[in-house]
């Protein structure tokens, strides 16, 4: 009992320039498959015997990979033990490359894409961490507007539906990395997850999209430690103009929040902006992103 694979004919083979200027070569080859087996082989067995799997290279052009294998009668009716089939194989230099030889969509690779997100932001420090101040050493009111680029990485993958926990999609969205992830320090990467249920053929799976947004300043809100009141000996006292050495209407309350020291007292004007500080708010939960297994 044996089989044979006979190269019958080539073509049509083409090499074309696409509109983009890219040259794409395509090859087609027809094989005659014969076996003297007592029972007819399945298509999968024929494909295995021919030995050409999707994604494999063309015998003479390794840059062209197999994009289709078609099994047909071709030679007319055949009966065992004289079973025969035509096997038409097509290769192309622009064929997508599978991760492995499987029709299971969950075996596809995790695919990444990167892009900057442009965001208008008012900054009080430059990129070296130095406070932005005027010639008098005072910060600009409200900071200065700049367009910052925040990195965004998107990962797509398919996950089998068996045992899939949909709750984690929403529960984990918005969380920050608790450990270094993608090179970003803890708290600098925020994840959003979306998932779409798919029924393809006999496969039931979820198509997941992970969007990681990176902000070197971290995602937890950091309002300036400032207010209209300061802590005094007998509780809170309203900050007035004279507290700032402002002789104009010295007893009038200040019209804008004034920066405070960590102990709740006013930052002396002479110590601004050096002693100005921020309060970190724990607004987002965190988790170890490595558990995603991307």
């Amino acid at each position, binding site marked *: *009992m*044996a*089989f*044979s*694979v*006979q*190269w*019958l*004919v*080539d073509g049509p083979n083409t090499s074309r320039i696409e509109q983009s200027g890219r040259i794409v070569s395509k090859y087609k080859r027809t094989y005659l498959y014969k*076996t003297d*087996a007592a*029972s007819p*082989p399945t298509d999968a*067995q024929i494909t*295995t*015997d*021919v*030995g*050409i*799997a999707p*994604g*494999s*290279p063309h*015998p*003479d052009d*390794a840059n062209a*990979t*197999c994009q289709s294998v078609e099994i047909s009668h071709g030679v007319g009716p055949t009966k065992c033990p004289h079973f025969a089939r035509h096997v038409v194989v097509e290769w192309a230099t622009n064929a997508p*490359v*599978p*991760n*492995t*030889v499987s029709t299971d969509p969950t075996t596809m*690779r*995790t695919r*990444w894409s*990167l892009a*900057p997100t442009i965001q208008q932001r008012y900054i009080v420090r430059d990129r070296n961490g130095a406070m932005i101040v005027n010639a008098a050493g005072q910060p600009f009111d409200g900071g200065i507007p700049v367009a910052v*680029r*925040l*990195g*965004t*990485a998107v990962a797509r993958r398919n996950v089998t539906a068996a045992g899939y926990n949909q709750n984690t999609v929403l529960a984990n969205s918005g969380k920050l990395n608790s450990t270094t992830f*993608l*090179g*970003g320090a803890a708290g*600098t*990467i925020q994840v959003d997850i979306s998932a779409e249920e798919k029924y393809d053929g006999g496969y039931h799976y979820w198509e997941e999209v992970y969007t*990681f947004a*990176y*902000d*070197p300043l971290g995602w937890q809100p950091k309002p300036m430690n400032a207010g209209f009141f300061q802590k005094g000996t007998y509780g809170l006292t309203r900050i007035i103009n004279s507290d700032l050495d402002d002789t104009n209407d010295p007893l009038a309350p200040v019209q804008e929040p004034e920066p405070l020291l960590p102990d709740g007292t006013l930052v002396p004007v002479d110590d601004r902006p050096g002693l100005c500080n921020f309060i970190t708010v724990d607004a987002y939960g965190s988790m170890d992103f490595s558990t995603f297994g*991307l």
Partner: protein
Amino acid sequence: MSDVRIKFVRDVPVDLDSLPKSARGQCLKMSPAVRPIVGANGQMLMPPSPPRVWHFPTGAVVQLNAERAAKYLETGAAEPYESHTGIGTYLTAEAEERKGAV
């Protein structure tokens, strides 16, 4: 017959040029997984990708000469494979050449 059919049980890198053409049809070219990192300027960066390599993927059924097949069998990278169609023969000469020879 000196040829042997084997089935790979794990991914094995292979030098494509050293293979008989009839055995190339089971090879896949793989890119090692590369994940983006955050660069010094706050941008996501993709680290340099290692070169892509051809390999026999897990599950590939390949017919090789006995000597080469034995290497894979000895290392446990592959196991003997026997389908109901047995050992095959491949006529890979160009069709017109064969016609002339006949």
